[in-house]
């Protein structure tokens, strides 16, 4: 199993614990994540500026992976969705040849459409397999209860993600967490957006969205919330205090990446999982490390 690893803009700067734990987990499972130094922006921010610019940015990354004969694996749901959507738009032959002309001018070979783009969580399920993963567990997390937050772009638009998960009632992250022996709860606003994209536009509304979910998980008393996207983590972890203020509350909900949870179960160390970068500490979580 060998993939072109697409880190995006946010993870390499704002989510070091996610990148560290993703790389460690992949290494542990024998999944090769190959760095492609030429990868650029996925195009997400440019979508609000110019449709074509965004599409060319995305297509360039897709073509770079094709040049190397590798499929793309990303860990930011925003990047994965943006690249997948672009791939879907480029099924239109006229649009593709127009974009390919631009790629040529950028010194990149043409995009053919054969590259696949998937989230790291998805390849763990589809390519590695849950059964196999279960066999690697050396530290079953039976005493821990998590609240999974998928993040909108994890499974939507469903068409771009090949309908790998249900767009309104997703299950794949829960399955990963339970494979690690931990409990993943059902809760009322599981589908709620983290609100990060509108921070700086309508800040109060954005924070309220984050607060509603934190309130629910806090009342349920989960040991941590589990996320699969740097933006979601920023909304719930970095902004937790601000979010709490909109409801007049002070939350204390630790936020982990799913890769950190799986790494715990597989016996990886605190360092390998980047726990030093978690802002909301939990003795119960770090106490379950066996290394």
């Amino acid at each position: 199993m060998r993939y072109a690893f697409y880190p995006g803009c946010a993870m390499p700067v704002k989510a070091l614990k996610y990148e560290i734990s993703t790389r460690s987990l992949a290494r542990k499972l024998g999944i090769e994540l190959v760095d492609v130094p030429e990868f650029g922006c996925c195009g997400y921010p440019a979508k609000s500026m110019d449709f074509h610019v965004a599409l060319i940015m995305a297509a360039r990354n897709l073509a770079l992976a094709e040049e190397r004969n590798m499929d793309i694996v990303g860990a930011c749901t925003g990047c994965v969705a943006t690249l997948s959507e672009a791939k879907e738009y480029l099924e239109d032959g006229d649009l593709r040849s127009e974009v390919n002309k631009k790629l040529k001018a950028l010194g990149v070979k043409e995009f053919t459409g054969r590259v696949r783009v998937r989230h790291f969580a998805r390849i763990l399920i589809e390519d590695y397999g849950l059964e196999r993963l279960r066999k690697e567990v050396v530290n079953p997390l039976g005493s821990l209860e998590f609240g999974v937050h998928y993040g909108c772009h994890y499974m939507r638009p469903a068409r771009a993600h090949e309908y790998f998960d249900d767009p309104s009632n997703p299950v794949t992250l829960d399955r990963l967490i339970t494979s690690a022996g931990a409990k993943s709860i059902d809760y009322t606003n599981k589908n709620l957006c983290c609100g990060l994209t509108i921070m700086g536009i309508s800040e109060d509304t954005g924070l309220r969205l984050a607060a509603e979910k934190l309130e629910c998980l806090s009342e349920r008393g989960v040991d941590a919330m589990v996320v699969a996207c740097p933006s979601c983590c920023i909304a719930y972890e970095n902004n937790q205090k601000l979010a709490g203020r909109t409801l007049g509350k002070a939350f204390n909900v630790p936020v982990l990446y799913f890769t950190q949870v799986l790494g715990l179960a597989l016996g990886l160390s605190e360092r390998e999982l980047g726990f030093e970068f978690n802002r909301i500490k939990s003795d119960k979580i770090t106490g379950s490390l066996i290394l």
Partner: protein
Amino acid sequence: MHGKLFDKERLGYCYQCGKCSSGCDINRLDPSFQPHRFLHLISMGAGARLLKDEGIWKCTTCFACSERCPQGIRVTEILWLARAMAVASGFVPDLVANQRDALLRTGRLIPVDNRKRERAGLPQIQEEPSLAARIFEMVRKH
């Protein structure tokens, strides 16, 4: 070309059921935000009015409405296009202006701190500061 992607005729299939708005969490928190009203304006040929409307920037791009629309209209994607058209006509929110500056200057949304990465044992990120600017220029000239 957008017509082909988003199937302009399809917009005429919007029967104003309001399902996009009723499933929208932004609408729940801020009732003045109503995606079905945007669709109404567009299908009436009055989409230009959206360009000045701050409302189009309140959408989180969660895609819940696109998945719910019984007529298969890509509501989120259409609002997103409306934003790009607003920017092209000079209505640029500060947040987007800042993001555009960052892209044009550095090629990325968030500047890399390679020293911090090194301390964390992570590989260096190679920057290509002029890439985004080149792509913007290419599309402008076209």
